[in-house]
Each structure stands twice: as structure tokens, then as C-alpha cells.
């Protein structure tokens, strides 16, 4: 007998699943080239789902469903809400691009992206190793199909293949690690695993052996060095609209499962996984920033920039526990800093790719940095939005990216550990290098002469959303307090149980 609370816990997921199926059917009757009916219906569904999630989240209650298999808590609900909004924005930006490239002969793009979103929901709500794994597979399988949506394009097909092979391997890593931990603790339930590990009765070697694979699997999904190889290739090869679907909302889900697995489940092993995260973070900051300098392709540059940004997220995650002492304030500081970082990163990425998508025309991809030459003369507004994104990623105040870096650095310095403070200094120096390649794009847009004098035109929905997206980066930069408090509150509530 399934109780009501279980249904309540997954109610938004049910809505999403039902509507995804309904929309797939409705789409059969849609004949317009831009699939307006499907598009509007999808956005409406997502808006309802996002509203539901926000309602759940702001109530702040934590409850479990289906025998502790899923959890509905403030952190998860906010992340799901943000992921939904991110997916809506992605679809708005993606539609004209996809329509121009024959990716909308059917409505698969909408259905697949809804299934991908459902996968993210399940990952975020999962309180059980297998549920998390199921959600991950649903997300990645939908993503493989999305990358391959442009069947006639060789690079996209190649990217899909790479993504599939490496993604499958990462899933294998994760599953293997989870099975080791299951074998050691005898449970798939995250709460039970925590209790078992915390009891100190389990053999440490087995746990750490499993942990290594879990961390490697997560590192693949987050795309951090040395498991980052697929990121540049897939970012560059995939159709830009799909790149945004992979590089945007899923980062929120990847963050959520990292918290669920490492913090909720394996916090007693913090000393072990923090060392691993530290190495991953340093590698990501180093490789991401240095490799980005050499890129001429903007999508590839942003891919490397993502790697370095994820390094910052890991820095936040690794600073929560100092010497194995779990201190509530430090935990809150560190994980809420990471959450704030991921959320603002996704928001920034959306706007940056939004501009790239906007400039792409039929038969012209606009993904080389030089394609942006003189954008300021052609369209001050979109050049401004892009500049805001770039300065934000570089961490220059008063843009929101600065506060994200500030929060992470604060968490590191607050630990009082010499090693952590040294890492903060290292991160700062790396972000100086990062500033160089972001500035280079600003330079191309503002200082160089335009190659074409053509004006940039965009459909009304794209124009409005993109402008709002850019403005939001600025507004959050002037008033970041609300989102910061929200993240802190969400993390506190999620970890309280």
C-alpha cells in the first residue's frame, strides 16, 4: 500500500511525466515548422512544474516517500525549480536555432528535454543509490539522443558517440562504486549507509575502494580534471542548443547527487573524499584556465571555463569539514557556497549560450570567437548581455559571479587551515588567468571592427528572455543577499535530517 505522502513527494514528477507523454502525442498533430503549439504547451507545463517546486520548496518541509526511496526537501525542491526554469530558458533560446537546422521535424526535442528534466528530478530527489542511478540514466540517455538529434551532421554524431561511450563508462564507475559500498554496508538507502559508515564497524578499505569509484563517477558527470576529456569535444560538437541543455540544468542535478552521495551518505569519510576533491579541484582550475587561453572556438573556450568553474564548486564542497570535525556553521557555509555557485553559474551559462544561439543563423554557427567581432556596433544590447556574462564568469563585481567566488573563498579561509588558505590563494591566481580569456572575448566584441554590418534580429520571446536573463545577472550582483540566504536555508534544512 502506497501512502499519500509518497504520492505527494513525487507529485511534480508525475505531472511532468504525464505531460511529457501527452505532449509527445499532441505533437503528432502539430504541423507548423516551428512547432509553436508544442512549444507553448511545453513551456506552460514547465511553468506549472516550476511553480509547484517553488511551493514545495518555500514550505521548507522535508518528507520521504516510497519507503525512504525519495526525499522531498528544500534543497532538492529549489534545485528542481531552478532546473525547470533553466530548461524553460534553454528551450526559448534553442527553438529558432533548432528550427533552422532541421532538428524540429518532429517534436522530439521537447519530449526528450522533458524526459531529461525528469531524470534530473529523480536524481535530485533520490535517497537511494538505485533511484539516483536510475535518474542519472534517464537524464544521460535523453541527452545522448538530443546530441544526436542532428542526424545529418558529422560532428554532432561524433560528439554523441563520444558522449555516449564516456558517459556509459562514468555510469559504470559510479555503479561499481555504489555496489562496493552496498556490499560493505548492506544497504542502498542513503540514511542507512550513513548510519552504517558512522558506526565505524565497516572495513575502511572496502569503503574507500568504493568511494574512489563513486568520486570518479561524479567527477565525470561534473566534468572535472582528469575526467573532463568529453566536455570540450561534446560542447563543441553538439548542436549549440543541445550544448546548453547539457551544460545548463544538469549541473544542478550533478551537484545534488554529489551532496546526496558524499555528504548525506558518506560524510564520515569526509577526510578521504575531501582529499580527492582537492586534487580534482586543483587540476580543474589549472587545466581549465590554462587550456581555455588557447581556444579560438567560443564553445570550446566556455567548455574549459566550465571545467575551471566546477573546480570552484569542488573547493566549496571540500571545505565543509575540517580535520574530520563536523561543525554546523562550516558545513552550512561551504555547501551553501557551492550551491550558490552552481545556481549562478547555470544562470550565467544560459545567457552566454543564449547570445551564441541568437547570432547563429541558417548555415552559420557563430561559434568562433572572431565571429563576435564588433558585436557592440551591431547590437549594443546583446554585446552588453554577453559582456555581463563574461565579467560575471571572471568574477568581477558587481556581477553575481563575484559573490559566488567570494562565498567559496570565504568558506576556504574560514577553515583556518594553512593548506586551505593556500588553495584560496591558488584559486585567486587562477581566476586572474581566467580573467584574461574572458576579457579577450570582451575585447573582440567591443574593440574590434565588425566583419559584417548586418543588424542582429531575434524573435520577441528570445529578446525578452535574454534581456531579462542578462538583467538578472546584474540585479543578483547588486542584491545577492536573497539567493544566498535561500541557498543557506536550503542546505541547512537538507542536512538537518
Amino acid at each position, binding site marked *: 500500500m502506497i501512502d499519500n505522502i509518497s504520492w505527494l513527494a513525487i507529485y511534480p514528477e508525475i505531472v511532468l511525466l504525464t505531460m511529457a507523454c501527452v505532449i509527445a502525442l499532441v505533437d503528432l498533430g502539430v504541423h507548423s515548422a516551428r512547432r509553436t503549439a508544442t512549444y507553448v504547451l511545453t513551456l506552460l507545463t514547465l511553468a506549472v512544474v516550476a511553480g509547484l517546486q517553488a511551493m514545495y520548496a518555500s514550505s521548507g518541509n522535508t518528507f520521504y516517500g516510497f519507503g525512504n526511496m525519495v526525499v522531498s526537501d528544500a534543497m532538492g525542491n529549489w534545485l528542481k525549480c531552478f532546473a525547470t526554469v533553466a530548461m524553460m530558458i534553454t528551450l526559448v533560446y534553442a527553438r529558432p536555432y533548432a528550427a533552422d537546422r532541421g532538428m524540429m521535424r518532429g517534436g522530439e526535442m521537447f519530449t526528450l528535454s522533458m524526459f531529461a528534466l525528469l531524470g534530473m528530478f529523480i536524481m535530485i530527489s533520490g535517497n537511494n543509490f538505485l533511484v539516483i542511478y536510475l535518474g542519472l540514466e534517464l537524464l544521460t540517455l535523453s541527452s545522448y539522443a538530443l546530441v544526436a538529434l542532428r542526424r545529418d551532421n558529422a560532428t554532432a554524431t561524433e560528439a554523441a558517440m563520444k558522449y555516449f561511450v564516456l558517459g556509459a563508462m562514468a555510469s559504470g564507475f559510479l555503479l561499481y562504486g555504489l555496489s562496493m559500498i552496498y556490499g560493505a554496508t548492506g544497504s542502498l538507502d542513503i540514511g542507512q549507509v550513513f548510519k552504517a559508515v558512522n558506526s565505524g564497524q565497516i572495513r575502511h578499505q572496502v569503503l574507500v575502494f568504493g568511494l574512489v569509484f563513486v568520486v570518479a563517477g561524479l567527477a565525470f558527470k561534473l566534468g572535472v580534471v582528469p575526467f573532463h576529456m568529453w566536455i570540450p569535444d561534446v560542447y563543441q560538437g553538439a548542436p549549440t542548443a543541445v550544448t546548453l541543455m547539457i551544460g545548463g540544468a544538469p549541473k544542478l542535478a550533478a551537484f545534488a547527487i554529489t551532496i546526496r552521495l558524499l555528504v548525506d551518505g558518506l560524510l564520515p569519510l569526509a577526510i578521504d573524499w575531501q582529499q580527492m576533491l582537492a586534487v580534482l579541484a586543483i587540476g580543474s582550475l589549472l587545466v581549465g584556465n590554462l587550456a581555455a587561453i588557447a581556444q579560438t572556438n567560443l564553445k570550446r573556450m566556455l567548455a574549459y571555463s566550465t571545467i575551471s568553474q566546477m573546480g570552484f564548486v569542488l573547493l566549496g564542497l571540500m571545505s565543509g569539514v575540517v580535520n574530520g570535525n563536523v561543525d554546523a556553521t562550516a558545513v552550512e557555509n561551504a555547501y551553501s557556497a557551492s550551491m550558490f555557485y552552481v545556481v549562478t553559474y547555470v544562470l550565467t551559462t544560459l545567457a552566454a549560450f543564449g547570445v551564441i544561439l541568437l547570432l547563429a543563423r541558417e548555415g552559420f554557427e557563430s561559434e568562433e570567437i572572431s565571429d563576435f567581432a564588433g558585436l*557592440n*556596433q551591431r547590437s*549594443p544590447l546583446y554585446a*552588453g548581455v554577453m559582456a555581463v556574462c563574461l*565579467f560575471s564568469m571572471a568574477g*568581477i*563585481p*558587481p556581477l553575481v559571479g*563575484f*559573490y559566488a567566488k*567570494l*562565498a567559496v*573563498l*570565504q568558506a576556504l*579561509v*574560514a577553515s*583556518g587551515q594553512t593548506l586551505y*588558505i593556500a588553495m*584560496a*590563494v591558488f584559486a*585567486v*591566481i587562477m*581566476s*586572474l588567468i581566467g*580573467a*584574461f580569456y574572458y*576579457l579577450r572575448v*570582451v*575585447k573582440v566584441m*567591443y*574593440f574590434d571592427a565588425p566583419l559584417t554590418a548586418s543588424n542582429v534580429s531575434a524573435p520577441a520571446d528570445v529578446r525578452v528572455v535574454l534581456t531579462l536573463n542578462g538583467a538578472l545577472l546584474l540585479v543578483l550582483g547588486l*542584491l*545577492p*543577499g536573497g539567493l*544566498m*540566504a535561500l541557498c*543557506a536555508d536550503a542546505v541547512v534544512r537538507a542536512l538537518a535530517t
Partner: protein
Amino acid sequence: MGLLSLAIWAPIAFGVLLLAIGRDEHARAVRWLALVGAVVGFLVTLPLHDGFQLGTAAMQFVEKAAWIERFNIHYHLGVDGISFWFVPLTAFITVIVVVASWESITERVNQYMGAFLILSGLMIGVFTALDGMLFYVFFEATLIPMYLIIGIWGGPNKIYAAFKFFLYTLLGSLLMLIALIFLYNQSGGSFDIATWHQLPLSRTAQTLLFFGFLAAFAVKVPMWPVHTWLPDVHVEAPTGGSAVLAAIMLKLGAYGFLRFSMPIAPDASREWAWLMIALSLIAVIYVGLVAMVQKDMKKLVAYSSVAHMGFVTLGFFIFNDLGVSGGLVQMIAHGFVSGAMFLSIGVLYDRVHSREIAAYGGVVNTMPNFTAFALLFAMANCGLPGTAGFVGEWMVILGAVKANFWIGLAAATALIFGAAYTLWMFKRVYLGPVGNDNVKGLTDIDSREFLVLALLGIAVLAMGLYPRPFTDVMDTSVAELLKHVALSKLN
């Protein structure tokens, strides 16, 4: 909304408005709107002067509101005797720059004017912020408009200059960011600067903080040996950019020493004062000599800025009334004089499109009115009594002699170099027979240029003849600061 908020946000609001609605098709309207914005920005700073209470070191016109509660960051503004004069100075220079760029900028006028107005608001924010993080946000945010100003409207090598400016200053300020976060943790979660002033700190902590702040402020001032970005940037920046950079932006760094380094780490400041004095003297003497051999007028004035700012830091780190007040007066005076010097070069550059000294000669024959102004500013630059340039340098030298005769002597010799390079440049550019056809064809300044130069000329003379209003405002705050710095914070 308080007066200080108004002084910050009024120009920014006008700047954003210009960016949003301005188009080159109606450049005239854009210029007038920019002027209105700049004048409004200046007018709102005037009531500050009437309302300012002398004889107290307390912060005035204080505004405080929670900003980012999670990190206990406040929107906390206020001015004391140290920061007061920079608020109207910034707004004044912005008006000057808008008028001076009236005709020389013809492309993307709205972005140019908007950037200067926004920059003006941000710089006032730096001078009035009483919260460490608010200070940092304003301090860093100034990089964005300046980067665009140099890169879009600069000279042939503008891109190199823009990057050098941005990355050089960013490196310094990022180290300061770590210092600020460290202080936040040390003080139990506060970004309040006044709290930090009272915070006891160990010797090691003070030393680290001192050098963290030094990284940011020394680059900004700039002090020798991290001054190399300044000449490159000045040469490439448009006239307005150079003027704002020299007149205001360099002061952000010097101001930081008084607001952060000295009161927060007084023991380290005293311990390392010898280093600061040595670097300042090198700036004053060695960079003065470097200025003498420059062939490019803007480069010459840029090096002379480094030398003049050396007087400022020298004054601060000899820790007496005369020195610190002299340094502050020198900052304001240099704001007027260097701004005027760069604008004078701009007047010539607009006509001949060369900054080489050798491209001129005998300008006095064709531009007599302009040469009169140029002579005044040149005299002020060498520190002639009766001009603004004299007061600050004289006070610093007196203070230095009081502290140590030899430091005073070294600083005083620098006055000779200052006179040498300025007058030599003046002779080669303005005096003598007409040098070439370019000079022969020059037309004298029009009424707009006359207005700009006259306003600055009046300021330079007024400050030189009657510096009392400036020093009166500073006295109490400077005395209080010195009293504070003399006390040890070691625990």
C-alpha cells in the same frame, strides 16, 4: 536617500539611461544629457560641504542598511575629513571630462559618456564606503568602465594597454580580497571597517595584511616598481580617460593606505615604513629622472604622476600631521593639475594628432591664450608657490624634515627634477620659433576649451593661494588617525 547615495547613484542613473537610449544619430542630445548628468552629480555634492562639521573625526552623512545579511555586509556610507574632498573632486572632474570630450568623441558617444558617468559614481562609492566588501565591490567595478574606455576609444596600441591595466590592477586587488576575507574571519564575521580598526591582530597577521593591502594599493597608486602599467595606459587612453585616471583613480590606492593599511595594521605599518619611504623616494627621484628623457608628452606627464604620487605615499608613512595632511592636499592638487596637464595635451592632440614633443615647437606663436593656461599648469606641476602643486609638496617636505633631515633633503631635491622636466617640455613644445607647418596651422582654443581650462585654472590658483578650506576639513581626522596608528594593536 541620503546625500552620499545621491552622489553615487545620480551619475550612475544618468549613465545607464545614456547606455539605454543614446544613439549616435542624435549625438548632440546625448552630449547634453551627459552634461546634465555630470552637473547634477556635482551639484548634489555641494550640500555636503555646507553640512560638514569641522572639529570632529567622526563619520558624517552616515547611511547604513543591511545589504548581504548572510555575510553581515552593509551598505554603509560616510565621509570624514580624509575622504570628504574626493567626493566633490570626482564629480567636478567628471563635468570637466564631459565638456572636454564634447567634440573629440564622435563614435558611440553615449557609451563613452555613460562609462564616465558610471565610473564617477563608482569612484565616489570607493571614497565613501565604510564596509570592506562594499569598498571592494566599488573598487573593482571601476575596472570595467575604464577597460572599455581605454579599449574602445584609445590609441593604436589600445588593446595592450587595456589588458595591462585590467590584469595588473586585478592581480593586486585579488590579494586584497583574501586580506578582507581574512579580516572578516578574524573579527568574528564583520566587514565593518571601523570594527577592523579596533581589532587586535598578531604581528604576523598584521604583516600579511599589510602586504595584502600593499599589493592592491601600490599597483593602483602606482608605486615604484609596479608603476610600469601607468605610462603605457596613459599613452593609449583617450584624453578623458587619462584625465580621470590621473586625477581620481590613482587616489583610490593612496586613499586605501589611510583607510585600511595604516589603521588596521598600525604595527606593521610602522615596522615597514622604511620600505614605503624608500619606495616613495625612488619614485620621486628615479622616476623623476625617467620623466626627463621622455619624448612623448603623455608619457612624461604619466611619469611625473608617479613621482607626484611618491610624495603622497612619502607623506603618509612619515607619520606626522604635516606629512599626512600634505599627502592628502597633494592628492587633491594632483587631481586638478594632472587632469589639467592631460587635457592640455588633449587640446594639442585634437589638432595635430601627435603626442611627440618633437612634433611641436613655438606653439605660443599660434595659440597664445592656450599657452598661458599651459604655463600655469606647468608651473603648478613643478610646485611653484601660489599654485596648488606647491602646498602639498611643501607640507610633505616640512613633515619629512621633521621626521628625518635626510629624507626631507632627498624629497626636496626632487622638486628640482620636477621643475626640470616640466619646464624643459614646456620650452620645447611652446616656446621658440614656429617648429613646423602643423604648428603654423594651429588655431587657438575655442570658448568650450577655454571654459574647461579656466575652471581648472581657477581651481589650481584658488587651492594654491588659500588652502585653508582643504586643510581645515582634514586636520581633526588626520590627528585622530595618527593617534590611532601610534597605538600598538599587538595582543
